[in-house]
C-alpha cells in the first residue's frame, strides 16, 4: 500500500509558540501543519490522512477537550496530545479518560515531546490500519447473500452441514453449495480461518458467543 506521510497537526492560539514547536517538530523530522484554533483545524483537516493532533488545552472559544470530543465523532479520529502551560489534575484526568494519547507541559523536555508524538503517530497508524482492514473485511462480507450469511453464522458456531440443513430446513447439498460460495467470496481455505476472519470483521457479535445447544 502506498501510505501518505503522517502529519502532526498542531493547534494553539499562541502563534509564537505554534511557530516554535512546529520548527522543533520539523527539525525532528515530522511533517507539521499548524492551526491557530480548533475550528480552523476541524475545517481544514483531510478526512482520511494519517497523523496525530497536538493541541493546547487552554484556548478561547473551543478548548482542547472540546476538540477531542468533536474529533472522536469523525471517521478519522486522530490520536490527540494535549499541551498545557501548567497541568492541573482534574483537567488531565478528563483528557486521559477521553482517550488522550498524552498530556504534556509546554516546556516538557524535548525527548518526552518527541517520544510522545512518535508514539501518537504509531498508535494513529495502528488504528488506521485496523480501521482499513475492518473496512476491507466488511466489504468482503458485504458480497454474501442473506442465506449465505445465515449459513455462515451457523458454520462459525461449529455446526455440521447436516445440522445446518436441519436448522434451516434445506438440503445438506444446498448447504455445501453455500459454503463453497462463502469460502470463494471471502478467499479463505479453512473453517478455522473463516471463524477468525468473521471474528475480526466483528459481525455476529452475539451468536459467536452463544454455545451450541444440546452438546
Amino acid at each position: 500500500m502506498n501510505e501518505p506521510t503522517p502529519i502532526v497537526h498542531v493547534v494553539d492560539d499562541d502563534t509564537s509558540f505554534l511557530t516554535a514547536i512546529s520548527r522543533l517538530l520539523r527539525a525532528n523530522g515530522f511533517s507539521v501543519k499548524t492551526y491557530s484554533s480548533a475550528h480552523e483545524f476541524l475545517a481544514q483537516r483531510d478526512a482520511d490522512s494519517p497523523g496525530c493532533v497536538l493541541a493546547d488545552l487552554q484556548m478561547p472559544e473551543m478548548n482542547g477537550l472540546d476538540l477531542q470530543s468533536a474529533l472522536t465523532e469523525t471517521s478519522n479520529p486522530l490520536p490527540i496530545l494535549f499541551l498545557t502551560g501548567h497541568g492541573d489534575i482534574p483537567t488531565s484526568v478528563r483528557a486521559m479518560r477521553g482517550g488522550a494519547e498524552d498530556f504534556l507541559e509546554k516546556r516538557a523536555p524535548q525527548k518526552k515531546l518527541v517520544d510522545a508524538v512518535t508514539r501518537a503517530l504509531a498508535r494513529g497508524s495502528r488504528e488506521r490500519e485496523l480501521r482499513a482492514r475492518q473496512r476491507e473485511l466488511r466489504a468482503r462480507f458485504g458480497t454474501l447473500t442473506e442465506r449465505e450469511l445465515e449459513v455462515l453464522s451457523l458454520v462459525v458456531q461449529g455446526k455440521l452441514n447436516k445440522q445446518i440443513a436441519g436448522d434451516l430446513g434445506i438440503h445438506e447439498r444446498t448447504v455445501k453449495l453455500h459454503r463453497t460460495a462463502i469460502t470463494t467470496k471471502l478467499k479463505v481455505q479453512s473453517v478455522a480461518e473463516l471463524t477468525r476472519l468473521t471474528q475480526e470483521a466483528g459481525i455476529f457479535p452475539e451468536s459467536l458467543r452463544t454455545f451450541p445447544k444440546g452438546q
Partner: protein
Amino acid sequence: MSVSACLTLAGIHLLVWVRNRNAWANVLFSLTAFSTAAWAFCELWMMWADTPLQFATVLKWGHVAVWSLVLSLVGFVRLYLKSGRPWLAWTACGLRTSSLLLNFLTGQNLNYLEITRLGHVRFLGESVSIAEGVPNPWMLVGQLSLVVWLIFTTDAAVTTWRRGDRHRALTVGGSIVFFALVSSIQAPLVFWGIIHTPVSASLFFTGLVTVMGYELSGEAVRASQLDRKLQQSEAGLHEIEERMRLAVEGADFGIWVRDLVRNEIWATEKWRALFGFSETERLELDKILERIHRDDRNAFHLMVEKAAEGDGSYQTEYRLVLAGGETRWIDSHGRVEFDGSGKPILVRGVSHEITERKQAEHESQNLRGEIAHAGRVSMMGQLASALAHEISQPLGAILRNAEAAELFLQDASPDLEEIRAILADIRKDDQRAGHVIDRMRGLLKRQDLDKRPVDVAELVGEVVALVRSDATARHVKLELTVADHLPPVFGDAVHLQQVLLNLIVNGMDAIDEVKGGDRRVNVSASLDGPHTVEIAVSDSGPGVPADKLAHIFDPFFTTKPRGMGMGLSISRAIIEAHRGRIWAENQSEGGASFRFTLPIAEEGI
C-alpha cells in the same frame, strides 16, 4: 384711730422685715406708716394746742415726721416699683432735707415766721385750733420738694404702667400721687392763710398707707402662694430626680461630679461599683487614675485637658484594671463647666461599661482579619496562577525555538535564514515574558495604594495577632518588639500587612527546615534615621545560603519544594511602591532576617 391703724401696719411690716432681711420695701413701708402715725399725732396735738407757741413747736417737730414720710415713700417707690429717675429722687430728698434744716433755722418753723394767735374753727363736729400769723417764705422750698416728689412718683408710676405692671402702677403710684397731691394742695392753702381749716394731711396719708398696706399684703399672699407652688415643684423635682435615678440605674450609667475648686469628687453608687469603690470610700483623682489601664491613662488625661481648652465636652473609651485583675472597658462622656473668667470649675461625667461590646468588636475584627487573610492568600494564588499561564507561553516558545535551532545547526548546511528567524523570535518572546512581569509589578504598584499615616505598632500588632494561632499550632514562639513612640509611617496598611504576613509565614516555614532547637520568629520595628522606620522579621531557621541572598527577591526564585517563588517578589514590589527598601541578611547568631524600611508620615505629605 388712724394713728393706731398706722402703727399696727408699721409693726406688721417691721416684723416681715425681721423675718426676711431682704424685704427692704417692707421696712420702708413700715417707716411710712410710722411717720404717718407720728404726723397724725402732731396734727391732733396742734388741733388741741392752747398757745401759739405750743402750736409752733409741735408743727416744728412734726416736720421731722414729714421728712421721714417723704424720704421713705421715695425709697419705697424705687424699691417696690423698681422705677423712677434717680436724679428726681435725689432732688426731692435733698429739697425735703433742706426744708427740714430751714424748719429748724428760720422762724418758728418752716411754715410760720411767727404764729401770732390761735383761731378756732369747727372740724368734724369739734372746735379745733388753727394758727394765724406771718407765713415763712422758706416754706416754698418745702412745697417745691413736694412738687419734685410728685413729679418723681408720677414718672415712676408711668414707667411702671408702660412696662406692663399696671396694677402696681395704679395702686402704689396712683394712690401716692393722688393723696400726696390732695394733701400738698390743702397744706399750703392752710399755711398761707387762704383757707381756715386745721392741717389734716394725715387723713390722706392714712388712706395712702391703707392702700399700700393692702398692696403689700397682696404681695404677702402671693409670696405664700409662691411658697406653696415652690413646695409643689420641689416635690415634682424630687419625683424627676427619682425618675432620673431609675433611668440612670436602669441604663447602668454611673454618674460622677468632680469639683475642681474644692477638689472633691462625688459619684453615684453605680459608678462606685463600676470603678470598684465601696460606698463610703473617699474618692480621690489619683485613686481613680490608678485603676485606669496604664496604656489608656495618658489618653484620658489628654482628652480631659483638651475638653477644658475646647468646648468643654469629651467622650472617651478606656480600660479599668480592678484589684482582682479584672479588666473593664468603660465609655465615658463628660462636660467641663467654667466660671465667668473661663476657668474650669467642675467636671461632670457619665460612665458605663462596654466590655461586652468591645469583646464583640474585637471578635468581629479578628474575623475580618481572617477573611482579609484568606482574601489575600487567594488573591496571591490567583495572581500566581494567571502569571504562570501567561509566562509559560513565551517561555515555552523560547525553549522550543532554541531546541529547534540546535537541531538545525546539526545539519551539514544549516538554513541560516531559519536560524536568524528563530533568534528574532526568541528575543521577541523574552520581551513578552518581561512585559508580563512588568505588568504584574505595575499592577501591584498601581493597585490603588491607599497611602495614609499608619501606626506601626498597630500594623505589626494586627498581623502578629493574625498569625498567632498558626504559630502556636506550629510550635513557633512569635515575639514582638516595637520601639516606643514610633512615628506613623506613610503607606497602605493592607498591602504592608500582606508583606509582613508573607515574611512571618516564610520565617515559620524556614524554622521547619531545622530539626529541634529554638523555634522563634521575632518581629521588630524601630526608628532608622529621622525619616525612616525599619521593620524586621527574624527567624531561627537555617538562614539563606550566601549565594542566594541576592536572588531571593527575584520572581519565581524559590528555595521551597512547593514554593511559587512569588511571595518575596510581590513583597519587594509593594515595598518599592512605598519608596522603601527590602533586603535579607543572615544573623550572626543564626537564622535569616528580612528587613524593610518605610518613610515616616511627615506633615505636608
